[in-house]
């Protein structure tokens, strides 16, 4: 699904922040990406959804070499990837409903066609009563759930979540983890970037440990 071969990344003329990364995210797989703060987890996630280009190496996404993917082809690939950002990236002038429906608007779908799905998903993540509220009014956990709902609404083949439990308390973190596991059971590959060891201990899953720009994988 996504394959890295000897990938390196540096910002400008600085040192390499990611070095010799070689790994693969298989279809319907579940893995954690972990490492100390500043290890490069967010940079790796940005490489995964083609927000950054590697300075060396090969990244293949859905069988396509990202170095050869033209700008016009990027949207169609990104639509197959759901991303949950550490800082949520909700648009403050749109309601929760509109934020979650945004990927469907981008796809050109009519509001009548997706309204029921968005409402259902919002109710499922516990935001049924908050769907017409603007993000600044939402709590951290609610924002997190809205961001997750936005990432899921288009049924992505892979979900990348950057510290999805970083802003919530342990009970909600467990619920979000359950949600990711169930999504994985439904066929979505999941990669969760976290440095919460307690969270990772709850699931026997592959761990990609990032330290000093290199990775070690524990299957």
């Amino acid at each position, binding site marked *: 699904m996504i394959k890295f071969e000897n990938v390196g990344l540096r910002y400008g003329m600085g040192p390499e922040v990611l070095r010799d990364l070689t790994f693969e995210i298989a279809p319907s797989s579940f893995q954690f990406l972990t490492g100390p703060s500043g290890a490069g987890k967010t940079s790796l996630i940005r490489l995964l959804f083609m927000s950054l280009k590697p300075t060396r190496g090969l990244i293949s996404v859905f069988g396509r070499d990202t170095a050869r993917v033209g700008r*016009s082809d*990027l949207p169609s690939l*990104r639509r197959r990837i759901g991303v949950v950002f550490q800082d949520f*990236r909700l648009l403050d002038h749109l*309601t929760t409903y509109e934020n979650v429906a945004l990927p469907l*608007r981008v796809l050109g779908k009519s509001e009548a066609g997706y*309204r029921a799905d968005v409402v259902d998903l919002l109710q499922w993540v516990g935001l049924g009563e908050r769907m017409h509220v603007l993000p600044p009014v939402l709590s951290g*956990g609610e924002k997190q759930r809205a961001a997750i709902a936005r990432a899921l609404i288009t049924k992505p083949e892979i979900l990348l979540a950057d510290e999805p439990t970083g802003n919530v308390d342990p009970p909600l973190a467990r619920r979000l983890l359950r949600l990711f596991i*169930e999504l994985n059971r439904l066929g979505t590959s999941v990669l969760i970037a976290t440095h919460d060891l307690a969270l990772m*201990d709850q699931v026997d899953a592959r761990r990609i440990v990032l330290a000093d720009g290199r990775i070690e994988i524990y299957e």
Partner: protein
Amino acid sequence: MTADDRLEPPPLDPPPSFGPRRMRASLSSSLGRPTAARDLDGAGRREPTIAPSAPEVTVSVAAPASPEPAPEVLPRDAPAVNAAASGGAPSGGHRPAAARPSAARAGGRAPKPKGPARPPPGKTIVPPQAVAGRALVSVVAIMCFLAALAVGVLTLVVAAAQDWQLDVSREATIQVKPIDGQAIEPRLAKALDIARATRGVRSARLVDERESAALLEPWLGRGLDLSSLPIPRLVVVDLADPATADLTGLRLRIAAEVAGAAVDDHAVWAARLRTMAGAMVVVGVGVVGLMLAAMVLSVVFATRAAMAGNREVIEVLHFVGAEDRFIARQFQRHFLLLGLRGGAIGGSAAAAAFLIADFATRSGRADGLADQAQALFGGFSVGLAGYAAVIGLVAVVAALTAITSRATVLGHLGRLD
């Protein structure tokens, strides 16, 4: 914690379909499962279910709805799930939205969930307040006003020049010079006869001595005695249709039969008027073009500022798979409206200025300048063509604003990678 206490690793067989409704049913059947006892705290505490306990449900039912629910609160429909589960529902999972009220009634404990309210119409993805609206509308309005004035004056001048050309070309003049030893009156009579007999001539008349004196008065003063001066006399020939009038025949006959006479068809004047009108059109188009160019540059700067202010919106749109054209459309919509608003304001102001000028020149309240304008243009009315040109200009301004913003956004996005 032992391996058995952990959450089960996920299986790898995806279901045949995957949509929010199906996903919700599938996920909720697992999340609402009340029997799975797991060590989720990592401290050996057994948690009977990840759903909230019954007392929590009771509290949440009894308490008024909090405007800011705590993050750890389950989905709002969770109480119905638990109620259904405790009531013996086989799956213990979430029900479809339509089924939940009946389930709640059966359980007798769950609150009646509100039906999914119809969301309000979708707002624009780029917030309108993020675009420097007022300043840009003012710039567009001013530019459109000045350009509309230029267009109006241009149509006025072009129409006047056409009238002048028509007047000049509808007339020809036979000039009879005094010749020593030959009386001028018989030659004038002969020229009049020839002119009246020529095809395409409506009428011909002699400019008498008083009219000739009036024509020369600005140069030679009043009380002039033309008989003492060798002043040529004129015959004014009014043509019915300049295209079909036999001016060549008239010229040949006058030259052959009237001594010292020549025909002037005003071709030189007509050519000069055409040249002047053409020059005015070039100047006017240039002025309008420069104004539109200045407006386009303003729109480019405003679009760049709007993009800089909406960087996060653009990033999010990219992440959710928006194409550049979609993003450009979001900005283009705003700028089209701004262009229409500014253009309408500027165009309306220009139209009002034309109406006021027209009224002032017609009502006799005009000063000397207006008198000159009336003498030149025959009234300061731009006519329907002028107003139509102003409306067209407003449309052009709006379209130009939208196209410019679209091109700016696409160019900027293209340079991002």
